[in-house]
């Protein structure tokens, strides 16, 4: 077993762990926002770990290049997707878990809710 393969195995397992944690978060967190937080992280980091790990297990230049592109894309898109869901949740009136400090959302300059 070479270093790349070892690294690959570690990364793959790490990535899987991130997913499991995200799944736990999805299961246990109390409101959509916490869940989004967990999922967006997993989407970025978990996918990155898993794909990089996978390519290390069966390395090739072409695959590596593809994975590099894919990881960057994934980090960007998963985060932006998460933000979009979060804002939509706020806009559609999803409640925060009790105890959440949401004063920042009660800004007095809130304009009228038209597009």
């Amino acid at each position: 077993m070479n270093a790349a393969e070892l690294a690959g195995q570690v990364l793959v397992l790490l990535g899987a762990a991130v997913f499991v944690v995200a799944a736990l978060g999805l299961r246990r967190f109390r409101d959509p926002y916490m869940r989004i937080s967990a999922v967006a992280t997993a989407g970025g980091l978990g996918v990155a770990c898993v794909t990089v790990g996978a390519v290390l297990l069966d390395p090739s230049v072409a695959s590596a290049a593809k994975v590099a592109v894919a990881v960057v894309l994934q980090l960007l898109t998963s985060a932006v997707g998460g933000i979009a869901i979060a804002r939509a949740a706020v806009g559609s009136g999803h409640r925060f878990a009790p105890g959440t400090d949401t004063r920042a959302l009660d800004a007095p300059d809130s304009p009228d809710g038209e597009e």
Partner: protein
Amino acid sequence: MILRALTLPIRAVVFLLWFAGQVVLSSAAVLADVLVSGRRSTPRVVRLDLADAGDHHVTALGVLVTLTPGTLVLGVVEQPGGTRSVLVHSMYHRDETTAVADLRDLDDRLVRGLTLGGRP
């Protein structure tokens, strides 16, 4: 200026490594929470003012904040003057001040690590 261009790759790598470390650290908090109950967080929404930050800057910050376990960008608020802030949902900061400070730190490092000429 040229110097900054030359050092950009190094600064970027340093920043990314730092960020990776941050991610690992924050993960610990999340992990500790979800493995036990998922009810240990102290969630809050904080506002981080970004002054005259450009679109790329706002986006980068949003992405990084969101990728960090425990924090999540909820959206952008634009003041009448054109200055923007992001609203961030934070789960594991003790209080608003720490949260804003952490986010401010991230923002500063982001600017230092990934730009040619400071805040664009």
